[in-house]
């Protein structure tokens, strides 16, 4: 009996439409009052290959990927061997009209081979497999039948009555099949879950952007960053957003800066390779003192690397991108509600300090779907930081804070002169040595007034071992910590990775053993912490094969490290 939680993995080919099942079941789970988390890994191809999605349903909040597979539903025979190490004798394997390799039965797994041929033929083709599987999941997970039917109806409404009905039939067939399988799952419902919103990391960034007043996005498609562009495009009319696909990433960042200059609240979304091309634009933002919001969705490099996989390998890149010295802020959310609020905050901080703010996410984070507390945005108003200019307006007026009131052209009587050359207060080119120094100092002191987003300490305050993580590893580390159940270990989670927040030193100092956990090959954040605190990181738990950490793997590696 699977009581506290279950992990169901769907395995299929690109183009088979796993996402149909995913999007239906996640909403259904939410409506039915379950905590759930869905994560996805896929190949860089549009058809074929082997992609999998893991659906975790749990009585408690859950936000991580696990290795263990309780139920494997195979929609294609492709690549089943990739999953072999994740199976146990307790795993139930369902072949949805697919032959399950004999060796799985030999391993002790319960193998259920469903012959759907007849049903599919009657329905009109193999595309109904997805809905049959959805029906099976509905039943297995004890979701609301009525809600499921409702969902099917609204999903296929536009395609006509006949299709709605066929899909309802398929759903019911799935429900019936599962009922007969006798797979006992009894996850407790969570009263709060039903009131939550099911959304992906991508949607969280998109909503956060709109919350931050984003009304302009220019970007060039690049996985896994494109989703945010598409999300804002979908919302563009309703929310008044100019969405432009640029000819390249250089155009994208320059458009963003032009838009801010003219009074918009603008962003770009990209991945490491695209961001690399924005490096000069970063420096431009630094020199003209433009606000800028950059979403960088990480994937494994170098170069093209593994385009559809996950990694946290671009921290160093964003830390120092751009010639010369200028200030910046980097956020890396770990859960979806933080992604919303940090993205919103990115616009405010960018605007207030006239600096670039970077949001670092990754494929795993963006493509996962989870349950998020609702946010009432009417409580957080947008404060546009630009002013109405007077005739003697000076764009780069030297001020104690380093921040000069920002005018925009056409609003007021002044001229707004933005300059990428070193400039004097009015924005005209200068080569005066003293003015140069004054301008560098002005730019560099802007962050003095900035208030850090401090790291979150999870676990016992009396720790002697400190796990350190940032960004998308949040959920897995939290869950591993819980499983470890030791009160000498705590977890310091950084969602502001730069500047290193002020409370970091204290948090790190307390630990006898500091362990960074990073989804990259060199421990980039660990290095940054060492530089900024001069405190040694004793151990690095790194992963860079393109997959996120699983909870079990973390437990094992943390324990392994402690005993070494």
């Amino acid at each position, binding site marked *: 009996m699977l009581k506290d939680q279950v992990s169901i993995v769907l395995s299929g080919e690109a183009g088979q439409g796993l996402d149909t099942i995913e999007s239906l079941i996640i909403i259904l789970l939410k*409506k039915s009052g379950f905590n759930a988390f869905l994560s996805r890994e896929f190949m860089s191809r549009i058809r074929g290959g082997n992609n999998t999605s893991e659906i975790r349903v749990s009585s408690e909040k859950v936000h991580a990927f696990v290795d263990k597979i309780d139920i494997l539903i195979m929609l294609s025979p492709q690549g089943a061997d990739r999953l072999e190490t994740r199976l146990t004798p307790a795993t139930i394997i369902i072949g949805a009209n697919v032959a399950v390799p004999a060796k799985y039965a030999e391993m002790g797994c319960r193998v259920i081979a469903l012959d759907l041929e007849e049903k599919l033929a009657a329905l009109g083709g193999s595309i109904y497999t997805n809905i049959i599987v959805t029906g099976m999941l509905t039943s297995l997970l004890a979701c609301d039948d009525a809600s499921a039917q409702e969902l099917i109806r609204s999903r296929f409404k536009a395609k006509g009555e006949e299709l709605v009905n066929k899909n309802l039939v398929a759903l019911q067939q799935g429900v019936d099949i599962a009922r007969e399988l006798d797979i006992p799952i009894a996850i407790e419902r969570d009263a709060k879950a*039903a009131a*939550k*919103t099911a959304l992906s990391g991508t949607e969280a960034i998109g*909503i956060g952007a*709109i*919350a931050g*007043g984003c*009304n*302009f996005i*220019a970007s060039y498609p690049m996985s896994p960053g494109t989703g945010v562009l598409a999300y804002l495009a979908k*919302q*563009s*009319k309703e*929310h*008044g957003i*100019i969405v*432009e696909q640029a*000819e*390249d990433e*250089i*155009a*994208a960042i*320059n*458009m*963003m800066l*032009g*838009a801010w*200059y*003219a*009074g*918009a*609240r603008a962003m770009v979304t990209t991945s490491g390779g695209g961001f690399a091309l924005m490096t000069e634009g970063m420096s*431009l933002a630094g020199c003209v003192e433009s606000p800028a919001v950059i979403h960088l969705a990480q994937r494994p490099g170098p170069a093209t690397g593994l385009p559809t996989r996950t990694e946290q390998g671009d921290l160093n890149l964003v830390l120092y991108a751009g010639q010369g010295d200028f200030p910046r802020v980097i956020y890396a959310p770990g859960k979806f509600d933080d992604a919303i609020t940090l993205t919103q905050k990115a616009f405010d901080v960018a605007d207030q300090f006239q600096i670039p703010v970077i949001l670092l996410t990754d494929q795993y984070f963006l493509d996962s779907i989870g349950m*998020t507390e*609702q*946010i*009432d*945005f*009417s409580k957080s*108003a*947008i404060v*546009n930081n*630009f002013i109405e200019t007077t005739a003697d307006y000076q764009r780069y007026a030297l001020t104690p804070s380093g921040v000069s009131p920002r005018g*925009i*052209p*056409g609003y*007021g*009587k*002044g*001229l*707004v*002169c*933005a*300059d*990428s*050359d070193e400039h004097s207060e*009015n924005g*005209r*080119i200068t080569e005066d040595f003293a003015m140069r120094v004054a301008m560098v100092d002005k730019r560099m002191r802007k962050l003095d007034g900035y208030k850090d987003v401090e790291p979150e300490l999870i676990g016992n305050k009396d720790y002697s071992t400190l796990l350190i993580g940032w960004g998308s590893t949040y959920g897995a580390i939290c869950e591993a910590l819980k499983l470890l159940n030791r009160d000498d270990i705590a977890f310091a989670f950084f969602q502001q990775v730069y500047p290193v927040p002020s409370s970091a030193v204290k948090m790190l100092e307390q630990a006898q053993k500091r362990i960074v956990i990073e989804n990259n090959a060199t421990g980039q954040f660990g290095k940054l912490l060492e530089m900024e605190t001069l405190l040694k990181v004793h151990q690095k738990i790194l992963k860079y094969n393109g997959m996120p950490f699983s909870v079990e793997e973390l437990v094992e590696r943390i324990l392994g490290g402690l005993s070494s």
Partner: protein
Amino acid sequence: MNTRFDFVEGKNTAWCPGCGNMMLLAILKGALEELNLDPTRVVISSGIGQAAKMPQYLRINYFNGLHGRALPVATAIKAANPELTVIAEGGDGDMYGEGGNHFLHTIRRNPDIAHIVHNNMVYGLTKGQASPTSQRGFITPVQVYGVASEPFNPLTTAISVGATFVARAFVGNQGQARELIKAAIGHKGYALIDIFDPCVSFNKINTFNWYKENTYVIDASYDPSDKAAALKKGAEEAPYPLGIIYRQAEHKPTFEEQLAVYEKDPSPLHRRQRNSELLNKLMPSE
């Protein structure tokens, strides 16, 4: 002529005595003045180069950005606030070399901006290397055996890519140049004006006199709305035609005109408010 665009502090330019840019400064001021524009409502987006220093010597809003990147900046400014008059300005290296990709795709977008390119057939600011418009055989410290590449023809390229206003001017013909700039700014949509503008320090071949002797004003009988004729006219070399090479007869929708955000509400982005109610709907509880 005194104009409301005169920037007194900047009287002393960083340009060489005799540089064509000086003439162009006067021509541009004259054009802006005659168009009766309000300096606070005009923006110049420029790149980096001698040409791109232009706005430094004007009483005007400007975004003096990166080498090669004035067009995307200009496009976004106009999109974010269509009430502004937007000009993108820079040199032949700036706009056709480093910025070549933006040249193509800005034309495809057709934002309502005027694009002024100072064509001196050389890189002035970096001391005399070949530019995309340098002529074959032109010798420089980098092209020691002379330029070997085909000179870039911005006019026929722009027409091929779909520009609806393409003109060529010469700073030595001030009156015409001023009128062409006015026409370019007045044109609804992307308007290219490539201006012959001698560099006295680094181009000893294509001098003021050379341009004078190798250009001619297009006859009034020429019909600039005939695309095939325009492609021919634009391809002419030595003597190079001066005037409007191509102007499409029908209006082509501009970038801003096609933006959904302006369908119902023409107000620029900076005057708008986030709608929290709609926003809350993005996180449905059911």
